């Protein structure tokens, strides 16, 4: 019983590191963008890029680029790029202030330790 209580207390007092929670949220968004890009590209090109052996049907071209490249590669590439830029500039959390504050460059002496009992 005591053991159950202390486990319960432990769970209620337990807090995830915000850096971990942010990383998890970022991971979900990243997988979403990656997955949409994969399905769009492979799906579209799989349907429209392949020419049957011996086919004499002309491949449609716009501005010198086959249309399957425009709709199946260029457009998802641009979309993925824009979403990545949004993800980078507005979604990724700057949660490393703690570690950067602790860190010090090698040429700078660790002032926090100066004067402390050794």
């Amino acid at each position, binding site marked *: 019983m005591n053991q159950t209580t202390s486990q319960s207390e432990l769970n209620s007092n337990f807090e995830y590191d915000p*850096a971990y929670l942010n*990383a998890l949220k*970022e*991971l979900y968004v*990243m997988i979403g*963008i*990656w997955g949409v*890009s*994969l399905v769009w*590209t*492979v799906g579209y*090109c*799989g349907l429209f*890029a*392949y*020419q049957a*052996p*011996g*086919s*004499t*049907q*002309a*491949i449609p*071209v716009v*501005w*010198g*680029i*086959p249309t*399957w*490249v425009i709709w*199946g*590669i*260029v457009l*998802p*590439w*641009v979309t*993925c*790029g824009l*979403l*990545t*830029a949004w*993800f*980078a*500039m507005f979604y*990724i*959390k*700057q*949660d*490393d202030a703690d*570690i*950067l504050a*602790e*860190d010090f*460059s*090698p*040429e700078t002496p660790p002032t926090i330790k100066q004067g402390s009992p050794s």
Partner: protein
Amino acid sequence: MTTSITSLINPVLAISDANAALLTFGVYCVLVMGLAVLSHRLLASRSFQAEYFLGSRNLGVWAFMFTFAATSASAGSFAGFPALIYAHGWVLAFWIAGYMAVPLVGMGLLAKRINRMSRQADAITLPELMYARFGSTAISIIATTLIVFLLTFYLVPQFKMASLILQSLMKDAPLWSECARVLGTVTSKIAYLESEDPGKLLGLLTFSLMVIVYTSMGGFRAVVWTDVLQGIVMFVGVLVMLGLVLYQVGGMSRATAVMSEMVPPVLCEASFSRTDQTDSKEIQIPSESWFEFAATSDSPARLFRINETAFVREGQKQSDLVKCVEIVSQYERDLFASWKAEDSAVIIPADVTAKVVNEKPYAYGAGQKGVYISAPGPSEDKDFGFLTIAVAMSFFMYWTIGGAGQPGNMVRLMAFNGTRTLKRSLALLVIYFSVIYISLVLIFCCSRLLIPGLDQTPDRIMPLLSMNIAASAGVPWLAGLLMAAPFAAAMSTVDSFMLMISSSLVRDVYQKGISPNVSEKTMKRLS
């Protein structure tokens, strides 16, 4: 089939002023070495290991973006990838499509975590980071072993590409020829090297010396600074190349229209024999030379291009077999006819006959128009074509998820100076990769129109195209800049990997396993 050669045209390599290209390339090399000297001075004023192996962990936005991009781009990006585009056409856009998500996954997936952990654990190398994360010496040893073993293999094509570029640029320079000749007299006495081209060996030697000197002088900082320079050179080089190529082929619309009519050549081998058996002097037939078989009553005229230099050696009657392609597309035949009509450097050795053997049509795409602008793309040996949907999907995952674990990139994730830098670098990297890879697809789709019949040795298309378009544009010095781009790609990969191998051996094996109290002076020497 044996018949007389009716014409033999010099390859595309002719450059009006090779010295101008050499000068540009030389300026680039001097800049690289200058950066190494500067970083060496900086190294002297900082903690050796943190600075030498990780640049004191303070890379800013541009340095982080360029070093990540330049390390990702290798000889594969500027030799292998162009060769594949040349050989298989537009389908390579599908093959490389995963790069749209490489910045997102390559940086987004692990960057913050790796950076944080390496700071917390004060880890300088990847094996150290692995140990800090998993607390297992075995994992650390496995990481060290894999890095040293696998990266060594990965370096081989980088050296090959760099050697090819140096040879293409310098082979007409008197000093280079003399050095190659002297080296040849030495290597001809070594059993293992006697059959190797001295020019190629000289290229390997020069490239190795250059990279070893600047990497060992300046360490990570030198590698990052040169990566920035190399990243800029690659970016500018590719854009200039794109402009010139599009101009010279008459625009993308024309290029794709011509490609849609092209069919794959027939692969074959050719040998050359003297007609005058009493003559014994050496005959050299340069790579990229053309020859024709005249039409007969039961066969139309046939056109061939060799992809290797053929020699009928002194005292011998016949050359060895060399790689060759039979040109079957009308556009390429017309192009040859126009070059022949211009009478530009035509050589007709009347005393030579050609024999073509081992003719092999493409397994997929032979005689099929439109194969260069659609999937799966022509294939020499696979009857289902070059790129199936399953393989394309695998490559999408490989570029993104596999690339995220590339050791050279992971080390860079340990070295940026905070999330603020990461955010901006990630956004910039999207632009960088998009421009580079989409441009490469456009450039090398067009390259079939400018340099036909290179299908047996397409990995030479990058240096050949660079020299060809610069010469055609009347700015031969530009060839030096264009050739510096793939050279920079090979160099930036080699320097990063050499440093990783060095850090793994010195820090993780020697310092951790053999001599924990090793002095900084000894570490410097070993590194």
